[in-house]
């Protein structure tokens, strides 16, 4: 299974563990992610102004580069998925914008590339049953809250990789790893996103609600596929470990995947996480989870 791969800006900087855990897991799973020769930042948010085509330039360049590679394009980051898929949708549906953007970047692209999230590869290509058979260090009984946030699911008609109100792809994935997925009502709520940079931290209130809800249902870990969700949910718990409060580490779903496939901390790379994940794995006494204990 060979796919083109778009890492995006954050995976090469603050979310290195997201990429290293995925690439190591891919080797075990027989998936080859071939990085695009030409790519640039997707822009991180899809433009919501219909009279301005300029923000579509960068993602369209990436899509055109993927067309040349001739393969489906895989992303890990939810924001990259969202921006590339929505841009692809505009290029397919809006002839006017397609003409304008393609003339500007001097490329011939009309939406030929399929953009996929890595979770879709696990679900639809490998299959969760086959994935379960590859697990060597099952995270048996670890209560995990799947956090979807917005970008994997909305808008459902353009992006959604699952049901927008009751998704289950992450829970099914967690079951394959031996985890015990925790059901809680805030899994598709927004974490506050880029609003975290506004003075007064207005994004912390929604992030705390998500964390508290997951905790109240017994979650010991929260998984996500968005570096900004990871940060916000983690940042909302700043200082809680020091204060001796019950804190829940927030990790990328691929970090749990790599742990279940037997990889240790050098691959999972928890540097930069505020609530340290290693300690929690230890405290819940999960058996055989690779190098985590």
């Amino acid at each position, binding site marked *: 299974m060979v796919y083109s791969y778009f890492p995006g800006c954050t995976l090469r900087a603050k979310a290195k563990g997201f990429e290293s855990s995925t690439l190591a897991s891919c080797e075990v799973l027989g998936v080859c992610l071939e990085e695009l020769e030409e790519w640039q930042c997707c822009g991180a*948010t899809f433009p919501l102004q219909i009279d301005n085509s300029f923000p579509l330039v960068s993602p369209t360049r990436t899509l055109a580069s993927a067309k040349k590679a001739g393969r489906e394009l895989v992303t890990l980051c939810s924001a990259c998925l969202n921006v590339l898929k929505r841009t692809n949708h505009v290029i397919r549906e809006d002839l006017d914008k397609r003409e304008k953007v393609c003339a500007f970047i001097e490329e011939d692209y009309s939406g030929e590339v399929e953009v996929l999230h890595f979770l879709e590869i696990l679900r639809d290509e490998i299959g969760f049953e086959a994935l379960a058979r590859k697990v060597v260090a099952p995270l048996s009984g670890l209560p995990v809250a799947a956090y979807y946030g917005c970008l994997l699911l909305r808008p459902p008609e353009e992006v959604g990789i699952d049901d927008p109100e009751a998704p289950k792809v992450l829970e099914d994935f967690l079951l394959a790893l031996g985890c015990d997925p925790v059901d809680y009502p805030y899994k598709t709520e927004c974490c506050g996103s880029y609003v975290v940079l506004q003075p007064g931290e207005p994004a912390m209130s929604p992030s705390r609600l998500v964390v508290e809800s997951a905790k109240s249902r017994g979650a010991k870990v929260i998984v996500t596929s968005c570096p900004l969700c990871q940060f916000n949910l983690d940042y909302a718990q700043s200082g809680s470990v020091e204060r001796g409060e019950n804190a829940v580490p927030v990790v990328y779903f691929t970090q749990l995947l790599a742990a279940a496939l037997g990889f240790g901390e050098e691959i999972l790379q928890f540097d930069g996480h505020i609530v340290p994940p290693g300690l929690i794995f230890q405290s819940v006494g999960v058996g055989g989870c690779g190098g985590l204990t």
Partner: protein
Amino acid sequence: MKLSREVIHTEDKRKLQDISGEEILSCYQCGKCSAGCAMTSAMDLLPHQVIRLLQLGQVQEALDSKTIWVCASCLACSARCPRGMSLPNVMESLRSTFLRPGDRCLNPAEIPYELLEIVPEQALVAAFRKYT
């Protein structure tokens, strides 16, 4: 507030509709957007109230609200809107009205250094897209 055709149908409102691609009068004020919005705790006006102001031609009042800068474009409202309106597009058209003449709502120099050191690049790119 004295309402008249001139007060309600303004050039500013027409521009917002051109930028957002949304028909503001299509909203029938059910409030579902505000009920499901994750960010209301930091808002001064609820999302459906911003739309109501625009329906009545009160563009400046909407522009002055904190709400337009607190909207995180998570699309929970638009995914649930029975009228199929994309409120985040309308919020972005209001932000654009403020930003396009060259103003900004986020000064890089004012982001606390401790936060800047740890925040993901994605947040910075997104915030500068939305606030400058």
